[in-house]
């Protein structure tokens, strides 16, 4: 079958009202679900799954993909407006999005988040359509040693999100690494730091830690100082992202999209590390580096491009190999199987109409995302206008319900509050929470892959330099560390007072 035939077959499959309606409804559900703190894109997809059982395969899968894409964008709305990432992938968006909102530029930040998300979405979808086969074979050359070096390199992001004090950032990261060790040991299956409590055996719930770390400290600060915000205006205003902003950030958006595509095509990483990596690369190369973390629009663009760049690319291992790349695609693969479809190389031969139908749907989904996102931003702008005395208690209620609903477990709510106090103390002592989060996500990956690599080689460390991919990441790691050290030494020489700048 030629390309055009395949395209026509795909078009005939999705060329009906139901398919596009499902996709559109999916995007709407996703944006709303992603925007509710604690709900997360993953849960929105999981809740939608049972409804797809009775649908046509392509309609059901498009519905889920719509929810996925919408959810990843939707998460940025509460991240920017109330410093609570709606979905883990948008935690990097907080770093600059929330300061922008504090300055009364929430509209600009939200607009940029949408534009960056949609651009990244298009690039990611095109990558899926054009390079699926190539990227899939690239993903398959990623064994534990390659993974280990990639994660090692990614940990250098910590320097980029530490703010002015690398020491405080490192402290935060160590705390994150420590808490990530709770749960079952991967290789021995023994309990680590569970204190005999079955609730701890699964490790600390990621969403609970995330919300506890970012949202709860704001609430505690409000309780501490109920009137601290009085006098600060905080409205969406008339400001909207300008084309000049977009053009200025375009390079970061494209770079972030490609980072998303590469990380997304490798099973097991997910959108959050990609967003952080994109953010830290944008910061490293930007002229406005000093402004990152204080409300730099390019930072929002980079993080949102990084996480939405993943959304199309995670379908590469799913469709080309039949392997789910992250939690969400694991649910989507379930939907394929419900309908008797088996993703993998043969699907490109046996069900080529479905593949091309999905491609067409994906392209359209970026457009839908733009439309729904624009409307959603207008709807959610009232959140920014709400007085804090009403907003903050409402956020607290949402956080509690959201965290409980992730796993129907009250213990997670306790974890959220405990982490809230940790976050509050960290905030008082100006320890940045972002390195904590990155270490909490990447720490277990680093450990697991290192130990798997050691099992593979019988504890021979040379496996960690077994091929070009590992060499590449070792080199990147060394270069980055040298750059960090040189910047640190330079800053020290220019005068010791500089490191304490934010106290002013």
């Amino acid at each position: 079958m030629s390309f055009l035939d395949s395209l026509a077959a795909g078009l005939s499959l999705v060329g009906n009202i139901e398919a596009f309606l499902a996709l559109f409804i999916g995007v709407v559900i996703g944006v709303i679900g992603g925007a509710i703190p604690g709900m997360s894109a993953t849960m929105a997809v999981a809740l939608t799954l049972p409804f797809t059982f009775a649908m046509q395969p392509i309609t059901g899968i498009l519905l889920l993909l719509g929810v996925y894409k919408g959810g990843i964008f939707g998460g940025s709305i509460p991240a920017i407006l109330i410093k609570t990432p709606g979905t883990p992938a948008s935690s990097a968006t907080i770093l600059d999005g929330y300061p922008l909102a504090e300055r009364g530029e929430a509209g600009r930040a939200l607009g940029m988040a949408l534009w960056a998300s949609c651009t990244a979405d298009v690039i990611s979808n095109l990558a899926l359509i054009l390079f699926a086969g190539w990227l899939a074979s690239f993903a398959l050359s990623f064994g534990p040693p390659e993974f280990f070096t990639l994660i090692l390199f990614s940990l250098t992001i910590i320097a980029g999100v530490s703010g002015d004090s690398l020491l405080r950032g490192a402290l935060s990261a160590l705390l994150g690494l420590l808490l990530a060790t709770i749960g079952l040991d991967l290789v021995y299956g023994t309990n680590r730091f569970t204190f005999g409590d079955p609730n701890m055996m699964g490790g600390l719930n990621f969403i609970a830690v995330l919300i506890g770390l970012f949202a709860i400290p704001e609430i505690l600060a409000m309780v501490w100082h109920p009137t601290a915000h009085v006098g600060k205006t905080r409205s969406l205003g008339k400001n909207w992202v300008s084309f000049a902003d977009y053009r200025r950030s375009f390079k970061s958006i494209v770079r972030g999209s490609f980072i998303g595509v590469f990380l997304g095509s490798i099973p097991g990483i997910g959108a959050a590390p990609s967003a952080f990596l994109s953010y830290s690369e944008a910061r490293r190369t930007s002229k406005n580096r000093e402004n990152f973390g204080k409300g730099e629009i390019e930072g929002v663009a980079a993080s949102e491009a990084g996480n939405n760049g993943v959304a199309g690319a995670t379908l590469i291992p799913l469709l080309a190999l039949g392997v789910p790349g992250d939690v969400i695609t694991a649910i989507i693969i379930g939907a394929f199987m419900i309908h008797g479809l088996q993703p993998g190389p043969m699907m490109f031969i046996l069900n080529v109409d479905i593949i091309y139908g999905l491609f067409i749907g994906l392209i359209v989904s970026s457009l839908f995302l733009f439309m729904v996102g624009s409307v959603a931003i207008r709807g959610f702008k009232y959140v920014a206008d709400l007085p804090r005395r009403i907003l903050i208690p409402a956020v607290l209620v949402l956080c509690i319900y959201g965290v409980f609903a992730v796993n129907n477990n009250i213990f997670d709510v306790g974890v959220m509050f405990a982490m809230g106090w940790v976050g509050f103390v960290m905030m008082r002592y100006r320890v940045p929470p972002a390195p904590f989060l990155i270490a909490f996500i990447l720490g277990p990956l680093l450990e697991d892959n290192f130990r798997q690599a050691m099992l593979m080689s019988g504890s021979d460390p040379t496996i960690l330099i077994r091929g070009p991919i590992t060499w590449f990441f070792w080199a990147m790691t060394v270069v980055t560390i040298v750059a960090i050290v040189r910047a640190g030494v330079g800053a020290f020489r220019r005068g010791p007072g500089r490191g304490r700048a934010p106290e002013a």
Partner: protein
Amino acid sequence: MTLKTMGAVCALSLGLAGAAWAEYPERPINMVIPYGAGGATDISARTISEPLGKAVGKPLVMANVTGAGGATGSVAVQNAKEDGYTMLFARVGSHSVNPAMKATLPYTLEDFRFVTVYEINPFACVVSARSDITSMEALIEQAKGDGISFSSSGVGSGPHLAAAMVLNAFGVEDAANAATHIPQQGGGAAATAVLNGTADFLCTNSSALAGFVSNGQMRALMVTTADPVEGFDAPTSVDLGQPDLQQMVGWTGIAGPAGLPDEVAAKWGDWMQSAAADAEFVEKMESRGSIIRVMSPEEANDFIQGQYETFRKLVDDLGMRIEG
């Protein structure tokens, strides 16, 4: 206790002891799925929830309580009220492999009362299609010679035990340590590890592998059932002279806390019979490689106990028990 006693007194005084239970269920029933959305247990549970909900006549509230290889959700049901309003979708991993292998597991089989097992999944052993290993003999030969590695969805998971059981059955000495176990985080990662060459082989649910085998990415070496499994061009364990490996099958069942009343268990037995008769349900499950076999509460308890004892003996023989 007082409440229960009072309830019993009230019921007796009205002469409605039987009728009071006959009214179960009066309200929606919470169904705990101890694994994540989209996994084998989740899909199975949500597929049966449709016909089962009709049979029960009250809504079934499905909730995923995940973590620690099914332990978190299982504990939630273990500690629930024994009134039949909180039930668990139990799985081979959470209720026979884990109890057999993990000394520190916060529950044992005695903490649950099984009302049914409705689904059986054959296990299959596969290697990557690019592997030199083409048969079980070749696999065993390599295990005895150069050594071999296998992946699993974690320590104490079904695939972990299955690989050790298979190697042991085929005469590999000290099977638990003879091969290198490379555990992964979850079933998808375990399959990926075989595809990308991290591990040599994997024994797990045929339904998790069917896609890879039909796509030509993996080669099936053996299935553990007595009859061949559709889509798997591989000998059965009986063909290979290892009928004992038939014990190594996956299953999904429903359980309540240990003190579940007989009447409630009996009701579930009836509901399951009518739910599993639903043609659409059977078709959906079979298309994914499952075998639908509805067991009565008694049968289910015997089946699980039997499998647990086999596994327990194997674990003790091979020194695979995880302490601490």
